[in-house]
């Protein structure tokens, strides 16, 4: 109906025009071509200053009546630079439109507003939601890697539900919390976070990397990620349906030693523990032979536990249905999504399913008054085995290959210890761990243009978020079998493992966040000057609580409900607590530009937080930035350079992500820690000492950037950045002596409160290079980004007594203190030639005598110059379209990064084959790996003397993403009653090139016992109705 109305209006207008200009007018015609010569259909051709116009047809041709020879034709098309052509005496035109590679008209979301990309004066990178959906990832934090310069996104685990990336903006600048502030639709710290948002709902992601983030004040120092969800657009309803089916494999799993090798290793360990007994104390050569030849698989198995536990491929899928449209007064975006992932283990109950719903409405109440109403909710149903992924992989990598999965008759073996046969504990035979959660986000915003002053508007929003999380962990005994060799033939006795009786833990967690914002905005153009400003007030309040209850002594494992548990006092327990935090903030911004050439922006924020004591709650965070679009100057006459902008920003930002109440002495309950009169009583211990002066960390950020467009097809963006983080909140653990009695407990939060004493420098460069060209039917878009940054501790409370080369000062954050291994003691001569540790023997690692004192002591440990946060990250995207096909490729990599990995091996667990095959032994004195030992964690070559032999270079280059799509030709689609249809296949983590072979280089587990990152192959369709 509406379309018909429009057509009628156009027809009427055209009629009028023809009538008005009938006497002097004439018809012109022509063709619009792309620079390469291909016709451009759909280009708007308008007579300037009128509403007369048309669009080009499929061949790029147009015909149009013009009033007279003075008329000017305006040719415009999305993605191309508009062109104005005077009609003059010409009646036929051939117009070539230049691609607008800078997409200058792009609008970028910034803190509390948006701005045109060309007006930006700071380092903000934006990526569109449609890019993110190309990664078939259920967790969108994993789609950031490689796509956004300056953002380090690394995934430590691929476990469904726990597979989010650690996001770091321009690396690390504090030893405390480095996570950026996430703002979703203008609401900071939104409950539910960004990870599980539906990528189909995301319009754009902006990353504030420099002082532009200062508008978020005391929470901004680690950078800010702004997520904007899609909104309705005026027009007829468009119903879209997207779905894909993924096939998931681990990126990389270790190859473990096989039975004969491991049997030999056990022999060697026994030999080292009792050298008199020779090299066959446990297994004879015949035994080892049998392990190898498979002649007696019952008694001499050769089990590949990795294969036994994992399935070759697991499934995941996503569906999304959305409706977008709207009329004059109301536009709407409605979306419903579902996601499903299953676990990688065979027969597992690991299953993660999510349903999410979003309704974003925009209502024009009157000409001056608009409101927006957003409602979003999601429900995550997550079920896991009772053992976490760490334990399942621990059991998988440790369990001897010489043990069978099943004894004859499908009787599961007990595994290495405690009945932890990984094939069993990855299933629901041990119970289940349900972790469902519901998140509700609501937002109402308004904008009222004050009628009495033009350009003045009041805006505001009210947002209320709710979180309901719960956990139901039900553990029950299971049965595994142990051989009984006293019978002939060997029989297999059942044994019960796990808890003696079933036991149930239930936990409920709720949280609410309420944010209220009100601002006064002003916008004015005076001549060539443009002024935009606002002042705002915002407050938010977060409240949370949890309650947990536990019961054991269940008579049966059939009904896992709390009230069916045992009734004795020792069979139940419970706990709970709550939290409450508030913030109150005043802030504003003034932006000014003159003639779109000279750009200036000033921001301030006055931030108050309940984390700090009265009188210290408030801090002031100003910032300023300037830009100069040199290419807009009239004197700028370089043909080859079509855009040149210089910009710089500087500001003060804060990081207040610390535990609250550190300004008070606090005590913690220790439940039943001590028994008096035979009964345990609750006691209170010191939790933390007060630091009455505590305040936020302060970051001073400088960014100098240059944006360049050249040779029409290239764009270059270059940034230098430098951050000085002072008042770093660190506990003084290095210089406070134990005799003070201010001593931290192992594995607990420090009782020493954080003090604002640390200082860190972080600087680097970012480069983004783009290229865009259309050749014939090909459109090629290439983009590369590269970031180098290095943190350097200026002060971190090192103890005074340690040598310079051990201090953290001058080193990157997180770098470890390790011995340097320089080889293996291969021969008795080696043992005599090098300084060594007490107890060193043949096959041990030789450590470097760093201080040349002739012995190996603690002073020979050296602070490494790299950490597991990469100093170099890079990405490369290629997007190529050809007729109905589109292909996109994303490469991603990191460099100058290390990870310490010491597998849990010995007689306590199996070895990576890389070690097993290359181990030093009396029979292999050329071995490059140290000899085997009872357990690596307490080995002289391992945990006892942490050393860099176990430091892996985890640089890698990944083919992160490849997607090939095909758009159904319009005709075919229409026959199917569709307005558009696309089918695609894609792959995620298709290939990884790295020195590390035994585990995925993004892993951060020091034992490599983690759920591996995922390789996903995906097929999908997008349909538009």
């Amino acid at each position: 109906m509406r379309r018909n109305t429009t057509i009628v209006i156009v027809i009427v207008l055209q009629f009028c025009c023809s009538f008005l200009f009938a006497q002097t007018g004439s018809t012109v015609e022509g063709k619009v071509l792309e620079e390469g010569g291909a016709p451009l259909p759909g280009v708007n051709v308008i007579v300037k200053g009128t509403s007369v116009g048309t669009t080009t047809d499929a061949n790029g041709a147009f015909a149009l009546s013009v009033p007279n020879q003075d008329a000017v034709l305006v040719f415009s098309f999305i993605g191309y630079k508009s062109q104005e052509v005077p009609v003059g005496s010409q009646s036929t035109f051939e117009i070539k439109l230049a691609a607008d590679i800078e997409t200058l008209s792009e609008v970028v979301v910034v803190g509390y507003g948006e701005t045109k990309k060309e007006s930006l004066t700071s380092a903000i990178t934006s990526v569109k939601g449609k890019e993110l959906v190309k990664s078939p990832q259920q967790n969108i934090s994993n789609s950031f890697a490689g796509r956004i310069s300056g953002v380090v996104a690394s995934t430590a685990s691929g476990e469904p539900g726990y597979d989010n990336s650690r996001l770091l903006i321009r690396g690390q600048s504090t030893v405390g919390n480095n996570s950026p502030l996430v703002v979703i639709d203008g609401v900071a710290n939104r409950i539910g976070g960004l990870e599980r948002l539906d990528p189909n709902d995301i319009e754009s992601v902006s990353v504030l990397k420099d002082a532009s983030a200062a508008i978020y004040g005391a929470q901004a120092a680690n950078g800010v990620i702004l997520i904007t969800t899609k909104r309705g657009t005026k027009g007829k309803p468009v119903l879209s349906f997207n779905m894909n089916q993924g096939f998931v494999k681990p990126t990389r799993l270790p190859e473990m030693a096989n039975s004969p090798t491991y049997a030999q290793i056990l022999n060697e360990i026994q030999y080292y523990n009792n050298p008199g007994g020779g090299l066959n104390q446990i297994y004879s050569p015949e035994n080892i032979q049998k392990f190898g030849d498979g002649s007696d698989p019952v008694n001499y198995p050769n089990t590949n536990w990795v294969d036994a536990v994992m399935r070759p491929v697991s499934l995941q899928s996503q569906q999304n249905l959305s409706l977008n449209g709207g009329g004059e007064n109301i536009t709407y975006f409605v979306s419903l999504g579902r996601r499903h992932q299953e676990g990688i283990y065979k027969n597992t109950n690991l299953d993660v399913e999510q349903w999410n719903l979003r309704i974003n409405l925009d209502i024009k109440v009157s000409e001056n008054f608009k409101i927006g109403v957003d409602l979003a909710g999601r429900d995550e149903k997550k079920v896991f085995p009772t053992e976490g992924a760490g334990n399942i992989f621990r059991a998988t990598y440790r369990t001897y290959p010489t043990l069978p999965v099943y004894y004859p008759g499908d009787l599961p073996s007990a595994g290495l210890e405690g009945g932890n046969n990984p094939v069993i504990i990855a299933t629901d035979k041990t119970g289940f761990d349900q972790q469902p959660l519901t998140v509700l986000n609501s937002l109402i915003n308004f904008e009222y243009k004050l009628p009495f002053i033009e350009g003045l508007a009041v805006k505001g929003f009210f947002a209320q978020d709710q979180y309901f999380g719960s956990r139901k962990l039900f553990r029950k005994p299971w049965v595994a079998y142990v051989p009984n060799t006293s019978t002939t033939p060997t029989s297999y006795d059942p044994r019960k493992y796990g808890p003696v009786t079933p036991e149930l833990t239930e936990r409920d967690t709720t949280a609410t966040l309420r944010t209220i914002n009100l601002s006064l905005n002003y916008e004015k153009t005076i001549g060539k000057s443009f002024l935009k400003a606002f002042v705002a007030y915002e407050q938010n309040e977060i409240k949370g609580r949890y309650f947990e209850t536990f019961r054991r002594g269940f008579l049966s494992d059939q009904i896992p409900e709390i009230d069916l548990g045992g009734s004795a006092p020792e069979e139940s327990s419970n706990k709970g607590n709550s939290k409450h935090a508030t913030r109150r903030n005043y802030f504003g911004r003034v932006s000014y530009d003159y003639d779109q050439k000279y750009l200036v922006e000033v921001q301030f924020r006055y931030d108050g937080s309940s984390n700090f004591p009265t009188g210290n709650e408030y801090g002031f965070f100003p910032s300023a930035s300037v830009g100069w679009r040199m290419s807009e100057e009239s004197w700028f006459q370089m043909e080859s350079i079509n855009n040149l902008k210089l910009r710089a920003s500087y500001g003060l930002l804060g990081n207040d992500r610390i535990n609250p109440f550190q300004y008070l002495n606090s005590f913690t309950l220790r439940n039943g820690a001590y028994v008096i009169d035979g009964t345990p009583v609750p006691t209170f211990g010191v939790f933390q000492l007060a630091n009455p002066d505590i305040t936020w960390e302060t970051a001073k950020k400088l960014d100098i950037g240059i944006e360049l467009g050249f040779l029409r097809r290239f764009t270059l963006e270059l940034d230098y950045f430098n951050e000085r983080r002072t008042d770093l909140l660190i506990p003084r653990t290095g210089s406070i002596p134990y005799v003070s009695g201010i001593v931290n407990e192992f594995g607990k939060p420090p009782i020493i409160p954080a003090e604002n004493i640390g200082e860190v420098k972080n600087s680097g460069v970012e480069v983004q290079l783009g290229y865009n060209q259309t050749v014939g039917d090909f459109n090629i878009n290439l983009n590369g980004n590269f970031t180098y940054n290095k943190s350097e501790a200026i002060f971190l409370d090192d103890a005074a007594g340690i040598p310079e080369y051990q201090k953290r000062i001058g080193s990157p954050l997180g770098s470890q203190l390790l011995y340097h291994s320089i080889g293996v003691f291969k021969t008795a001569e080696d043992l005599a030639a090098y300084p060594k540790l007490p107890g060193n023997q043949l096959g041990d690692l030789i450590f470097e005598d760093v201080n040349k004192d002739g012995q190996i002591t603690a002073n020979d440990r050296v602070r490494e110059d790299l950490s597991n946060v990469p100093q170099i990250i890079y990405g490369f995207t290629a997007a190529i379209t050809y007729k109905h096909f589109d292909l996109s490729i994303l490469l991603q990599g990191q460099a100058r990064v290390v990870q310490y990995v010491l597998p849990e091996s010995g007689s306590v667990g199996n070895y990576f084959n890389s070690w097993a095959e290359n181990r030093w032994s009396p029979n292999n004195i050329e071995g490059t790996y140290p000899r085997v030992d009872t357990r690596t964690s307490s080995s002289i070559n391992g945990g006892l003397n942490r050393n860099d032999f176990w430091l892996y270079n985890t640089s890698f280059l990944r083919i992160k993403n490849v997607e090939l799509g095909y758009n159904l030709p319009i005709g075919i689609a229409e026959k199917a009653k569709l307005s558009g249809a696309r089918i695609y296949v894609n792959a995620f983590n298709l290939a990884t090139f790295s020195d590390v072979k035994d585990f995925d280089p993004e892993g951060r587990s020091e034992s490599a016992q983690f759920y591996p990152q995922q390789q996903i192959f995906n097929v999908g369709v997008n349909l538009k109705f």
Partner: protein
Amino acid sequence: MKYSIYVLIAIACCLVSCDKDFLEVKPTTVTDEALWKDAGLTEAYIINLYTGIRMADKEASDDEHNIGFGRGYHWAMYASVTDEAVYSNDDQTYLVQRGQLSPVLYGWTSTTWGRSYRGIREVNLALQNIGATPITDARRALLTAELRFIRAYRYFDLLKGFGGVPLIGDRVTTLTDDFSGLYDRKSINETVDYIKSELDAVIPILPQDPGSDWERGRATSTAAMGLKSRLLLYAASPLYTSGTNDVAKWQQAANAAKDIMDLNKFDLVKNLDADPAENYRKLFLSAPGIEDIFFREYSATSRAMAMERMNAPNGYGGWGGNCPMQNLVDDYEMMDGTPIDDPASGYDAQDPYVDRDPRFYASILYNGASYRGRQIETFLPGGKDSPAGNEPWNTSPTGYYLRKFLKESVGLDDWNNMGTSPWRYIRFAEILLNYAEAQNEAVGPDQSVHDAVNKVRNRAGMPNLPAGLTKVEMRERIRNERRVELAYEEHRYFDVRRWMIAEVVENQSARGIYITKNGNGTFTYAPKEALTGKTFAAKHYWFPIPIEEINASNGAIGQNPQY
């Protein structure tokens, strides 16, 4: 329309509450504002000081209800860093056994340093604040004495590990303090004197017995006297006096023990079983009684480690943890009181487990011992509790398993009931042996010395020591009596050091037994090395002070010799 918009904006402004206290949030944890003003919370804080913090991976966590004084029950016990035991799973015991103990590699030994000083500060914090607590002055005096007892025990832990240490007094160090005043290590004598004077001060104040308002498990005057007895015995020993053999010190030590004996309050438990071996075994499983002077109790909801599971033989599904060495086994006399190396003892190395001290059977599981319904099988080939059995990495490296402290009525999978035996810090048998040792050194082996030792031996079903022992012979018998009677009770490590015999006994190899089952069902016994590389260096008489401490003080705290 316009009007309603203004109303809306007005409402929005109201929502932005102008509440001035918006940023004032009440803490949800206990702060000192609350703690010291509440008598119950203050007592809960004081009781907490009977436990200490975890300083290293291999120490009790909250779930394991935290370490007390010394180390107590844990996966790896103190016995496993001495010539009593080898811990099959290492847990940082081998670095001590192999002489690798250093300021960097100190496992769970030197952690006493940090734990004790934290405990001391927290005692001082209570002493500083207790004045404000709403309690009676009498109660305040009692709690103050209790706090000083706990502090004295923390200092004793420091003394036995490190020798003379910095004395902090009542000072509550704060974050902004200049720490340099804390680095002055006092001499051993000064440290001993301080602990002694603190104990002397609280003995008259603390109640002798628990009562209606003084629960069992809290400090008593007799606990303070017991600690004083041990303190003075240590202080008189060669390591503490640089071998000067100060008779006056021995006499003081003897007197301190005698003071407890003279109370006629404590006695040795004999009524648990007619069989002396069973009586001795059950002693360690039962609730504190007439023999117990200071102890820590556990319960089903406040358990120590799963000691039963940890130490049971692998053939039963246990983890074969703290396995007795042959070195200890050989020090149990024959039942007639002769040492096994006495040619007249009748000891047969090929039938070694007959007619031994009853305490051997109560403390140690050996091949052929009856246990949980069958006999222990540590023999090869095929022994269920040998490397040929279940989970071979949990088998005993020595050929023996621990029996002492462990309840045999508790199923080895019954996690909720394991680790509930009390840990006895000080029991009367020790006091008798303290007396015997000190009196023998002070005046020689008089009748009172014989009586004290024999009382301990007789209770265990052992005959009297032979008459006419010389002072030196008596010394050796008392030392052996301590080794056997107090095995695994966290004495041996410190005893061999204070006697300065560690260089001998801790340099002997860690021995075990290799038992072969012959075709005819008989056994052949051969010695074996249970743990390679057992060594002791003179520097290991004292713990190393952790390198962190040396560094934090920039070397101002003096390291122990030779580290």
